[in-house]
């Protein structure tokens, strides 16, 4: 093994990322669920002017529902398959 490989292997053993870094699925799930709810509500209360601007598609409603579905998907994935963090070494 070269010096570089020894040095990096050593750092890998001391690294704390695997044990301590939070799961990004929680953030994606949370943010998109929140955005989904906000935008869906904007869609449910859309004015005629809004609808006309978007070619008679209730784009807020559809986008909101899509984002909500994505957010819930990530939360469900996290719930069903939680990350198995390796045991911290200290």
């Amino acid at each position, binding site marked *: *093994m*070269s010096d*570089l*490989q020894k040095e*990096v*292997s050593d*750092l*890998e053993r*001391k*690294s*704390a*990322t*695997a*044990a*301590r*870094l*939070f799961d*990004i699925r929680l*953030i*994606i799930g949370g*943010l*998109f669920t*929140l*955005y989904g709810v*906000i*935008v869906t509500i*904007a*869609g449910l209360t*859309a004015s005629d*002017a*809004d*609808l006309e*601007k*978007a*070619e008679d*598609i209730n*784009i*807020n409603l*559809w*986008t*909101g529902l*899509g*984002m909500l579905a*994505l957010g819930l998907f990530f939360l469900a994935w996290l719930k069903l398959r939680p*990350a198995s963090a390796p045991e911290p070494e200290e």
Partner: protein
Amino acid sequence: MQSPPSAMHTAAPHITLAEGLRLPTNGLDYAILAIYFVVVLGIGFAARRSVKTSLDFFLSGRSLPAWVTGLAFVAANLGATEILGMAATGAQYGVAVVHWYWIGAIPAMVFLGLVMMPFYYRSKVRSVPEYLLQRFDKSAHLLSSALFAFAAVLIAGVNLYALAIVVEALLGWPQWVAIVVAGFFVLAYITIGGLSSAIYNEVLQFFVILAALIPICVIGLKKVGGWDGLTGSIEKQHGDNFMTAWGGTGIGDPNPLGANWLTIILGLGFVLSFGYWTTNFAEVQRALSAKNLSAAQRTPLIAAFPKIFIVFLVMIPGLVAAVLVPQIGAAGSGLTYNDAIPYLMQELLPNGVLGIAVTGLLAAFMAGMAANVSSFNTVFTYDIWAKYVVKDREDRYYLRFGRLITAIGVLASIGTAFIASSFSNIMSYLQTLFSFFNVPMFVVFIIGMFWKRASMKSGVWGLVAGTTAAMVNYFWIYKQGVIDIPSDQGANFVSAIVGFVAGAVVMVAVTLFTAPKPDAELAGLVYGTEPPADDEAEAAAAGDDAWYRKPALLGWGAMVLATACYIPYSF
């Protein structure tokens, strides 16, 4: 660093948005934007506790799962200059924009994953220049490190300046406010959370930008009468070739791109795109932070699938804008090609989705800048500071230094952004200049990885010769009109081919007269050598042998899919 097309076509100082593009944003839109900024900072603070060593800070401890690094790999390239620039390319050249994705990205990404990643990941190098140090010598290493560090700050600054222009046009903020605010947020979340924070934000940005672009495409298509309506109107206005990928690209045929099928395949598809995707550290860094060799190989392969389809999300707005404003790009229309997406946002999106789109655009600008900053600090710390300036200190010192240099790097980009706002010509010239240093990187890597005999000195000479040849071709042979090439774009492709060939010839010549690297030092770096036994890198996580995680299947699947995508646009 920017991808090959953007380097020429959308050099950010050229991004000038038309007057009168102010968006009708309201409190709802700003609330959506504010929530995003809070989350960005939150990710930085939450990632802080995972940073214990310099490896955590610069490479996430080499421990992230493949789907995270894969999405970050796409998002690091999906900066706002790329999004606005590719929509502009679509509005200007039509369906030919698909070349930058299907031939200009996918083959290179697959090659990185299947062929090159084992050498990168197993050798445990922490950056692309560090590979050059292991494989060649200090001169190749120092040259590429210094150039990379300088270019990364430059491009981060140009990105920031482009953000300021767009924000000023769309939201009415003064330029300096946008530069300082965005700079501050990037500074905060990278200094605190390191690469993990940058990568997590990139993954988030990936989904937000999809949520911004999809509604624009859906409403835009309906407005012009669906895909058939779009095709009909475009062909009436711009001719049949506008809706095909290869129409008019025969050698000698005139076409707006100024390139023929040979220069597209060799120049864009081979030299430029392989150089960018396989040796640009801002991209490769994402794969190096994956948790094992299998995950590192899958990083660019997982990225390839969204990359194949993202082109539709930028091409459709470009084409729709070309239909709605037939004079787009011409002086009288009041709109430049870069205005395609902002124009559609203004015309089509109601409040709510509009806020999502603004958030996506700002997120993309910040991620584009953050990718450069988070690769700059790594190269500056590991490759320049720790190897040539302050050597052999304890790891804590380099972690502290890394945080400091991140802050300095961001401040330098803020300075660059202000310089760019006064001297935009100089900046775009510098960017053109730097794009030539990327040209020979791929030839040096490919020869270094596959030809054991290539000598220690051949690396630096290959870099110098390739860069010089590409510059001579561009600035003298093309600009002085020695040979007639129809456009900058086409000249850029030809220069890349020339640089590649010159680099290869010089490497072979130098190798014949200089000493090879001792065999023992090449173990694991070159094709045909035995890598040193290393259980950790090889240790596949449970489930890595599932069929859908096989790198070969993913890689070839992406190639087949990209080829199939060409079929409807080729006849």
